[in-house]
């Protein structure tokens, strides 16, 4: 044997122990186990929960909603901005969800200021475009960390909010919208905005930063939150179901193109008036389906699920939303028994 009996195994064993311990420590650090201050999707999603805990089986935010189907009628104008198939002339199937920005699926409509729309457009080339839009024209905060700060401050009362606004003065633009924008009594009368900036790449390879909006065809009929409250806690879902049953509802999709120097990384900053806009098509909603058995129930409207020709920009939110939405999806799908589907008619019911 070449091994010398005089050689101590201590040094090699210490080397092995150090390699293993060092690797395990690097892994633990990467996983965030050694950094309790890191903003993880789990912490962000946990911060959304109301005082009584999250509504099991439901989305952790925008928990109250109703599904719809329809189509996106593309007029071809969008081909000037993006090579995505969705912008070639044609009609592509749509799946979506009207919703309220609340962690409670039982929140009364008039108690929720922000409304949203989840949208999925599928094209025959296999591409899927998902987005989750809301009705304010700008977002409340500039960074995901500030959003987490907002979630922590809001429940603590006016003093905490005053301190929060001191740290994040950009919040005032959103507060101004929340205080002054008209309420409506119908999802069909609300606009829905991407808020976040994305990159559109055309067939020639030119890339432009854009935001998009869905502008309602229905005339907006302002209403006070008190009047909306008197119509009942679930009026919006009843109204949109009836309205769509009567006639398809439409929104025009308008893409706004940034100019060099426009802030694409901060969704609290509106771009100046007069930016180039392109009407790329019409969203037609022609069927509304209750969520428990609806086709939107098991869809995560992750805004980073994009077709070829659209990609994320330097806006930090789509990545943070994707990470947090995945966490919410993992949680709620594991709790599916807490959100039962409607029993099929004819089955035994208590």
């Amino acid at each position: 044997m070449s091994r010398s009996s005089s050689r101590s195994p201590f040094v090699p064993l210490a080397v092995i122990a150090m390699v293993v311990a060092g690797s395990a420590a690097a892994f633990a650090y990467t996983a965030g186990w050694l950094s309790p201050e890191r903003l993880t999707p789990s912490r962000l999603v946990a911060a959304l929960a109301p005082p009584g805990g999250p509504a099991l089986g439901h989305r952790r935010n925008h928990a109250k909603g109703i599904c719809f189907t329809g189509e996106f009628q593309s007029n071809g104008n969008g081909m000037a901005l993006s090579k995505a198939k969705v912008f070639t002339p044609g009609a592509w199937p749509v799946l979506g969800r009207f919703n309220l920005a609340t962690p409670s699926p039982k929140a009364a409509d008039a108690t929720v200021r922000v409304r949203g729309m989840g949208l999925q457009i599928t094209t025959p080339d296999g591409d899927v475009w998902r987005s989750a839009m809301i009705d304010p024209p700008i977002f409340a905060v500039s960074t995901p960390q500030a959003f987490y700060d907002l979630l922590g401050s809001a429940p603590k009362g006016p003093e905490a909010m005053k301190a929060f606004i001191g740290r994040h003065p950009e919040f005032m633009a959103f507060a101004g919208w929340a205080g002054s924008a008209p309420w409506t009594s119908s999802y069909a009368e609300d606009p829905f905005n991407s808020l976040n900036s994305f990159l559109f790449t055309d067939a020639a390879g030119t890339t432009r930063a854009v935001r998009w909006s869905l502008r309602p065809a229905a005339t907006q009929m302002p209403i006070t939150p008190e009047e909306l409250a008197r119509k009942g806690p679930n009026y919006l879902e009843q109204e949109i179901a009836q309205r769509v049953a009567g006639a398809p509802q439409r929104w025009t999709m308008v893409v706004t193109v940034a100019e060099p120097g426009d802030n694409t990384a901060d969704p609290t900053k509106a771009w100046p008036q007069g930016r180039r806009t392109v009407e790329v098509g019409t969203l037609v909603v022609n069927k509304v389906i209750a969520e428990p058995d609806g086709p939107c129930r098991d869809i995560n409207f992750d805004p980073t699920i994009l077709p070829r020709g659209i990609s994320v920009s330097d806006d930090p939110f789509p990545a943070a939303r994707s990470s947090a939405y995945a966490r919410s999806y993992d949680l709620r799908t594991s709790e599916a028994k807490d959100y039962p589907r409607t029993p099929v008619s004819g089955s035994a019911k208590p």
Partner: protein
Amino acid sequence: MSRTMTPVHFSGAQRLLHWTMAAGIVAMLFIGVGMISTVAPSYVPLVATHKTLGVALFALVLVRLALRVTLGAPPLPADLPPVMRLGAVLSHWALYGLMIVMPLLGWAMLSAAAYPVVLFGDIRLPPILPQSDSLHTLLWAAHRWLAFAFFALILLHVAAALFHALVRRDGVFEAMSPLPQRKTMPER
């Protein structure tokens, strides 16, 4: 001078695959735990890298298995204690099993969540399962816990390799060494 046809080293192709995949698998495990614990902009490219590298590693492990079946492996030293021999055999089967199962679990997990599977280069993979809350939950848990098991097994594998290289000096490490073959074979 070899008295039998039994090789002393793994073939060059096997060693190249071993070390390429080792780097890839370690990267996958770190990217995996890193991406699910961040909301930073790096989340999007990390997830795309994880999916793309996962598919690439799945293709490589199939080639590797084929080479293993056709070319075989050098024998373990005759004086290896039976417990270490058993550990070597079982841990290698477990490593091969994880290399095959983990990419499939990831692909199936994304399919069961109705996520499009998009790789770098705009490559799209079809779903291999329909959307299912219960399957997604099961597959996600399996992917996560087997990843931790995979990392633990790799630490054990590294410790064992170094034990062979530094303490036993029995030629087992050299059989898979990335360095050029030494002229003198270890004594058997």
